[in-house]
């Protein structure tokens, strides 16, 4: 695969004043990269919390969309249990999402301190948990949770637990490092000439070296042996196999030397221990990064984690979704999810089905109509509905079940073939060496063969390649791309087609006026009338219009006698003028009961929206539509330039999908619309799933997620998908994805170069073995030298291309990875 052109991202070059990532050229928010950063920065200023920036030391992360108040249904049963005990002190532990540095801890502590009644807070930043103790009746836990969530964090019930994998590799690393350093001290005396003639001290040191080195090989080498064995059993090899074999050969040789009484400076223990320790260090860093990416998010519990309120008699209980039965009465608060198909029992409701179907616009539902399973309450009041079937029969149930883990696949073939060739090649060379020197006697021939085996141990690559991966992953994290699986970069490099979901993936979850000039051209009188009508409704469309009017300076009249007509709009009788704001048909005076209203609205005003009429005459039209993510067309153009094909698969209507595709630059023949979850999965298969990267956000993407080579989400605040994804993006735009795809290719190129260099070293080493000029001492010098040069080469190859501030005349600036912060 040849190197693609660098993906250019059009950026202003200015870093976001809050998080430091590059501000996208279009759709950015002034000095900030996204609305979330803007909101949080303002909050920090207003509340006197700017100490956050000093503590963050440049490690602030992008927030993404503006933080919304979320439902805390999960909290109610936990809170009840917490306050039930006697005594005046209560305590509770909750999970938190988004804690990534000391500044986050400080912020939570500070907000806790500012609230009365709190006794103690212990944040566990590594796992992402918070333990709170407070005085019963004095401290308002809900208020504190809301206060913290305004800054972009999210809380959930306690589900995270520490993994043993990281603990295991940590203690192995510590023990190996300690033993290695102590063996080095003994080896120092051997190198200075301590010999057998020095009697018991020599024997003591040799034996101790042997015992410690054995411990290092057993304790420290164990992860490599285990991985190599797993690779052999699954027939998919990795470089762990030659590394494990190399460790065993070097250890065996040194053991042989000791047994033959030729110990001391003829053993390789020093080099062996150092390599094992350093390679463990590489593994540790890998595992630590992966863990911290995973722990950043809340843990997903599938269907059990979806909580809904159920009315039993005159009590309201919070139950997990699988306990819902037919004809249960559910109470769905604003922002909460309705997990089953249900018939609405309150007169009116506004729901948003984009998570389950991809429909962009919120929908009005009347009493007796069906609320689809998986829709969220998009209004400002709660509604109640009667479940039409058990949860087990709900379309959500199959989508929420844990998917099969993605087995190792094609993307690891590169390493598999490399490992096989390496092992075979080394064995062949060792046999050749043996045969060439057999004339000098069995002992000499064995010596040479063993020297070949020792010197070809791929320890240098075992250090350089993990380092390369970690450098790239660390930079991608700073850019907003977080990997949840260790092989993400190997998957990304094979991606040829990038498939996007529409609603919530290419677009943000909020609405905006598609034509902002509409409000600007209104007369002040009309503007005020429209504002007084729109701001009194909880409908997302009305709120959007009201916000736009407010920025134009509309004034509020508290005396306005505005009447709300649920499902239609609002009306205001001002003398002879009957003003109506809302749905087009109703506002124009058509009082028929709305039927097939969605289709009509689409024909009349395809994006949806509201109109203002006076006595039935149209005065203003407010078309409202989805907001694209900032800079998305430029980012997608960058993907196309890098050689990727773009596809759009949406559950929304064909007209909307086509329109959005043309806005962002996806060819119409690559657009599929009205797709149900199973259809999305089929489409991915049809595109040759092993080259597909899928970016989605709703549960209707869950099946496609399981099929694609690599799947990620850009909406980490929505349930379910982050737990199924291979990676997630932080922030409001897609720049991290573009950067990651480019980085994976660069990494592959660097890996190939490192391997080539390593092969060259091995050629030199093997030749000198065959010539009989390689001795253990020379090998002990050569191997560390070659490893060191490989490491330096890797670091140099991956050095960041830092760009200066762009000159005004150049519109295109290379994707510059943002400000470096501490990596540890």
């Amino acid at each position, binding site marked *: 695969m040849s190197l693609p052109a660098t993906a250019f991202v059009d950026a202003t070059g200015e870093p976001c004043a809050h998080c430091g990532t590059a501000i996208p050229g279009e759709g950015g928010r002034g000095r900030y990269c996204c609305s979330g950063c803007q909101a949080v920065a303002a909050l920090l200023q207003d509340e006197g919390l700017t100490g956050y920036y000093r503590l963050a*030391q440049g490690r602030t992360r992008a927030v993404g969309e503006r933080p919304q108040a979320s439902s805390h249904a999960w909290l109610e049963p936990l809170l009840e249990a917490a306050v039930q005990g006697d005594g005046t*002190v209560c305590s509770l532990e909750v999970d938190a999402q988004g804690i990534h540095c000391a500044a986050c801890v400080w912020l939570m502590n500070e907000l806790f301190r500012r609230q009365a009644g709190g006794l103690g807070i212990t944040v566990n930043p590594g796992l992402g948990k918070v333990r709170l*103790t407070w005085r019963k009746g004095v401290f308002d836990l809900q208020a504190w949770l809301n206060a913290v969530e305004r800054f972009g964090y999210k809380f959930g019930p306690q589900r995270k637990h520490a993994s043993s994998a990281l603990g295991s590799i940590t203690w192995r690393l510590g023990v190996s490092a300690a033993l290695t*350093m*102590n063996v080095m*001290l*003994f080896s120092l*005396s051997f190198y*200075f000439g*301590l010999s057998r003639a020095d009697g018991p001290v020599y024997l003591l040191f040799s034996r101790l070296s042997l015992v410690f080195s054995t411990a290092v090989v057993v304790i420290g080498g164990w992860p490599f042996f285990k991985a190599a064995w797993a690779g052999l059993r699954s027939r998919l090899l990795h470089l762990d196999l030659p590394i494990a074999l190399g460790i065993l050969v070097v250890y065996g040789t040194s053991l042989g030397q000791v047994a033959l009484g030729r110990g001391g400076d003829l053993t390789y223990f020093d080099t062996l221990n150092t390599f094992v320790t350093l390679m463990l260090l590489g593994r540790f860093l890998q595992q630590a990064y992966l863990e911290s990416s995973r722990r950043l998010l809340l843990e997903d519990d599938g269907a059990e984690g979806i909580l809904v309120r159920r009315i039993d008699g005159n009590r309201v209980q919070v139950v997990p979704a699988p306990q819902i039965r037919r004809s249960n009465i559910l109470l769905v608060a604003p922002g909460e999810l309705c997990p089953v198909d249900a018939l609405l029992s309150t007169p009116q409701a506004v729901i948003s089905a984009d998570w389950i179907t991809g429909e962009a616009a919120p929908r009005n539902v009347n009493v007796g109509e069906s609320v689809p399973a998986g829709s969220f309450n998009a209004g400002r009041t709660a509604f109640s509905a009667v479940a039409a079937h058990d949860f087990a029969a709900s379309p959500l149930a199959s989508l929420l079940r844990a998917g099969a883990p993605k087995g190792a696949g094609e993307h690891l073939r590169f390493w598999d073939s490399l490992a096989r060739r390496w092992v075979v090649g080394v064995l062949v060379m060792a046999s050749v060496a043996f045969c060439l020197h057999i004339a000098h006697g069995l002992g000499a021939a064995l010596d040479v063969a063993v020297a070949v085996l020792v010197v070809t141990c791929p320890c240098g690559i075992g250090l350089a390649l993990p380092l390369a991966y970690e450098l790239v992953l660390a930079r991608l994290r700073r850019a907003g791309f977080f990997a949840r699986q260790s092989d993400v970069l190997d998957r990304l490099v094979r991606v040829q087609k990038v498939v996007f979901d529409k609603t919530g993936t290419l677009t943000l979850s909020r609405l905006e006026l598609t034509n902002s000039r509409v409000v600007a051209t209104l007369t002040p009188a009309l503007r005020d009338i429209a504002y007084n009508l729109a701001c009194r409704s909880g409908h997302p469309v009305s709120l959007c219009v009201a916000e736009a009017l407010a920025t134009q300076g509309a004034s509020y009249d508290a005396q306005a006698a505005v009447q709300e007509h649920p499902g239609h709009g609002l009306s205001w009788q001002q003398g002879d003028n009957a003003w109506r704001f809302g749905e087009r048909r109703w506002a124009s005076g058509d009082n028929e009961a709305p039927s097939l209203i969605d289709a009509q609205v689409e024909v009349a005003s395809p994006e949806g929206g509201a109109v203002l009429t006076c006595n039935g005459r149209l005065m203003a039209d407010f078309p409202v539509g989805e907001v694209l993510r900032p800079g998305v067309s430029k980012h997608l153009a960058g993907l196309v330039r890098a050689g990727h094909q773009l596809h759009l698969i949406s559950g929304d209507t064909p007209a909307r999908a086509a329109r959005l595709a043309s806005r962002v630059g996806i060819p119409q023949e690559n657009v599929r619309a009205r797709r149900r979850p199973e259809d999305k999965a089929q489409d991915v298969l049809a595109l040759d799933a092993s080259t597909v990267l899928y970016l989605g956000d709703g549960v209707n993407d869950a099946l496609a997620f399981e099929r694609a080579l690599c799947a990620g989400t850009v909406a980490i605040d929505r349930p379910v998908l982050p737990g199924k994804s291979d990676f997630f993006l932080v922030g409001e735009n897609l720049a991290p994805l573009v950067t990651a795809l480019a980085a994976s290719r660069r990494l592959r190129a660097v890996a190939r170069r490192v391997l080539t260099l390593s092969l060259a070293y091995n050629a030199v080493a093997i030749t000198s073995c065959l010539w009989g000029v390689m001795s253990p001492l020379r090998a002990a010098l050569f191997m560390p030298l070659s490893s060191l040069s490989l490491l330096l080469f890797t670091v140099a190859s991956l050095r960041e291309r830092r760009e200066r501030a762009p000159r005004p005349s150049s519109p295109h600036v290379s994707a510059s990875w943002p400000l470096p912060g501490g990596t540890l």
Partner: protein
Amino acid sequence: MQTQRITYDDTVVRRFIIASVLFGLVGMAVGVLAATQLAWWQANFGVRFLTFSRIRPLHTNAVIFAFVGNMMFAGIYYSMQRLLKTRMASDVLSGIHFWGWQLIIVAAAVSLPLGLTTSKEYAELEWPIDIAIALIWVVFAINFFWTIAKRNEKHLYVAIWFYISTVITVAVLHIVNSLALPLSFTKSYSIYAGVQDALVQWWYGHNAVAFFLTTPILGIMYYFLPKAAERPVYSYRLSVVHFWAWCSSTSGPGRTICSTPPCPIGRSRWAWCSP
């Protein structure tokens, strides 16, 4: 679950600081005298208590154990209470530690000019004072570990780890190096002799610098430097790595101090000196 009020014991801290300043003045004054004698030997004024050989160890002991020692205890008591969010376990033990330590210093100030010395660098004090040091150190260790056991902050800040390594290692070093056969109340012979004694002495000497003068001060630094700079340590994880790498390897190289050039010649002799 009840709330409790915690009051930190700052009296012992204040005492140690005052003692440190006082003995610092004394120790450095003695040092000035010794330095003067290097240039002008007549500065001993013919008084045998002021001869260079007697006041030099007085100076070194005063500045290491009295000046730095008291300061270090002050820093440890101050910071560990706040890092563990608990008062010291026993005020009585704190008091015994303080007064006992000052008595030891006074004993040193009396015995060294009198010429009572083992002539082992930084371990010149004779065996009764050595026993006193061991006892007071044990008192300190009991108070220290008891406080850690009673702590309200479960996870130990890196400075506490540095203090732990100090308490354990200094105890071991002192006991091993000071092993001696007493002849009378004021005279003893080390159980090691000749080159053996030199090796043990400098293993002690090097590690004393490492674990009495370095680790506790590093711990104090990790507490007070962020406090003064009003920002956390740049990389806390690196400081943790720092500590564990340090303490798992440093007790070893103490043996190397003997391998400096003025040592028995010949590669092989050098060889077993070096570890």
